[in-house]
């Protein structure tokens, strides 16, 4: 094994370094805050001869994903990056990339959606595309961003999967924040990730094939069934690949990772960079004798139902903390988690906390408040108000 070099980099650079190590052939991308540094860095790598690939500086995110589809169908390894309105603009093409079974990898700087326009962190952009058929990973820190990019290619390109993968890093909190990362050696990534081998045909005049057929009702549902099965299958592929990565590179990833959950009465379920703050809050609360633990979602698609049931069923209550909201319903994770428990005898009480929208800070104090509110639920033995907004700025409310 080659030495892993330590570097201090912004989150966008971390995902770019991860992408570079995977030797993509084509990088179609369009700049958008806060992920712009990704295409900038990829352009630099190519300009400096560090990466043998071509940028396509397209005129929109819609065209970015369209060019990704064309290039991937031609047999190239393809990577792009986007955020917020950009992810929303390419929404249509995400479904098409997945339906065509093209393992495109995209780094996302998770950012709020307009209106009002806001460039800061929440998870609404990728959550809004949760049904597109793309796998979705969320990083807690820059190291995770880098590592998850490398894992994303291997998982997406696995012939049992063949689906696009998104790797989310939180806007500014990660994208623009310098953190120390360990960068694997190129030869070790080459060993871990073989060149992309399409499973069933590419656009090649020597073997003509039609991509993007029109499927009538007698076929369409079966295509969607097969695609959904591939997403389900990706669950075990993720476990295999994460385990192999841990063995080779010494960093362990789980679909859901835990902290102090063994004896916890209350578990905080988090995703992305808030998980680090939650861990700090739990350390402090544990010092005060509170039995609280953390479950962190790294993989949101496929939704790790079984793992979540296993981990959370032992708790009395779970606080689902989310940086997204489906107006008229709840946070996306809460609704899906409730679904995961609906047919179970043993289930914790579930309470949803919406916070951290549009860059609202989620502090240790926020988690304390969430804990206290969840404790009330435990004491009452029932959930009267399933969803609450926390860390509201009362001064500006009317």
């Amino acid at each position, binding site marked *: 094994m080659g030495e892993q070099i330590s570097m201090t980099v912004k989150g966008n650079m971390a995902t770019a370094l991860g992408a570079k190590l995977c030797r993509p052939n084509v990088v179609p991308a369009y700049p958008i805050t806060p992920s712009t540094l990704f295409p900038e860095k990829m352009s630099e790598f190519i300009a400096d001869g560090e990466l043998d690939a071509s940028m396509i*500086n397209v005129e929109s995110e819609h065209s970015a994903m*369209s060019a990704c589809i064309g290039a991937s169908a031609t047999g190239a390894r393809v990577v792009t990056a986007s955020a917020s309105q950009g992810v929303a603009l390419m929404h249509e093409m995400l479904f098409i990339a997945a339906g065509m079974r093209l393992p495109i990898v995209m780094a996302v700087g998770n950012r709020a959606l307009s209106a009002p326009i806001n460039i800061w962190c929440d998870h609404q952009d990728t959550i809004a595309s949760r049904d597109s058929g793309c796998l979705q990973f969320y990083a807690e820190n820059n190291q995770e961003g880098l590592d998850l990019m490398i894992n994303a290619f291997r998982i997406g390109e696995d012939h049992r999967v063949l689906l696009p993968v998104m790797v989310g890093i939180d806007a500014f909190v990660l994208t623009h924040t310098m953190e120390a990362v360990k960068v694997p050696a190129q030869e070790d990534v080459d060993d871990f990730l073989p060149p992309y081998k399409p499973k069933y045909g590419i656009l090649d005049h020597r073997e003509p094939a039609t991509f*993007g057929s029109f499927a009538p009702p007698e076929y369409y549902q079966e295509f969607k069934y097969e695609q959904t099965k591939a997403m389900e299958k990706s669950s075990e592929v993720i476990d295999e690949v994460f385990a192999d990565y841990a063995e080779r590179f010494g960093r362990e990833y789980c679909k859901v990772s835990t902290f102090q959950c063994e004896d916890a009465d209350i578990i905080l379920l988090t995703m992305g960079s808030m998980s680090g703050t939650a861990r700090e809050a739990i350390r402090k609360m544990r010092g005060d004798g509170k039995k609280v633990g953390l479950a962190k979602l790294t993989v949101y698609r496929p939704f790790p139902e079984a793992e979540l049931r296993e981990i959370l069923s032992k708790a009395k209550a779970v606080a689902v903390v989310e940086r997204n909201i489906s107006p008229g319903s709840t946070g996306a994770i809460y609704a899906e988690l409730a679904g995961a428990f609906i047919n179970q005898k043993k289930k914790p009480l579930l309470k949803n906390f919406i916070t951290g929208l549009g860059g609202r800070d989620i502090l240790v104090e926020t988690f304390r408040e969430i804990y206290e509110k969840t404790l009330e639920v435990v004491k009452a033995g029932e959930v009267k108000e399933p969803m609450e907004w926390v860390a509201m700025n009362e001064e500006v409310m009317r």
Partner: protein
Amino acid sequence: MTEKEELELFASGHRACAGCGEGTAVRQILKVAGPNTIATICTGCLEVVSTGYPETAWEIPLIHAAFENSAAVAAGVEVALKELGRKEGVNVIAFGGDGGTFDIGFQALSGMLERGHDITYICIDNEAYMNTGIQRCSSTPYGASTTTSPTGKYSIGESRPKKPIAAICAAHGIPYTATANIAYINDLKKKVKKALETEGPAFLHVFAPCPTGWRHGSDDTIEIARLAVETGVFVLYEIIDGDICNLNVTVKPKKRKPVEDYLKRQRRFGHLTKEDIAKIQQEVDEKCDRYGLPKRE
């Protein structure tokens, strides 16, 4: 006729309407392009009639993704081919209908042309959204009645002139731009050949009547296409390196027929009055003067 030209790369059995001008256009274009070609298409008639699973009319590699992005998908294909060392001797053609080119796909087209991809973009123009049932688009000519620009007590039908797409594309400074017409097969084929031989982006605007949408007999398709040129309604020309001021008219009718000969053959124009036709005639005359075409009969 070479052996390559005998190949039918757009196969029979496609579901285009009887007398569909697009069928003739694609068939002839692929005869010139040959089997070493990869094509992209837009959502629309061409996609619906040719790719219904489990069948396909295409003998060459084809990709359809969505309505508005034939040019962007083609850009991905072209760059990937170059990057993977497979571009040599391979044509990349992006097909679009008029809706997918003039309207919803215009941004992606402009981006592709501006970036200088080695792609021939071919718009097959039947002057409305035909696949969804004859709605107007920016290619629909003045006076045409469509389902969203119907003629009525207060409406002449389409109230705006046709967008000059070829000139707009040429204005990007691309090396080759041309207009063509399915009635003039040799002229069309020459232009396809030139476009494909051009290094960098080329744009071809191919006029192809639609019997269903224009409401003419299925056997009239070619005759009406020809009348569009003979009346000066649609002018056949080439523009090299975006030099719009020096366009080369490739087919000049000896004497121009009156536009009425063209309009009266199509029920989409059936409601036009003498005055309406005179107005259209005047505009066509002015345009033909600019192009240096002969005076009207």
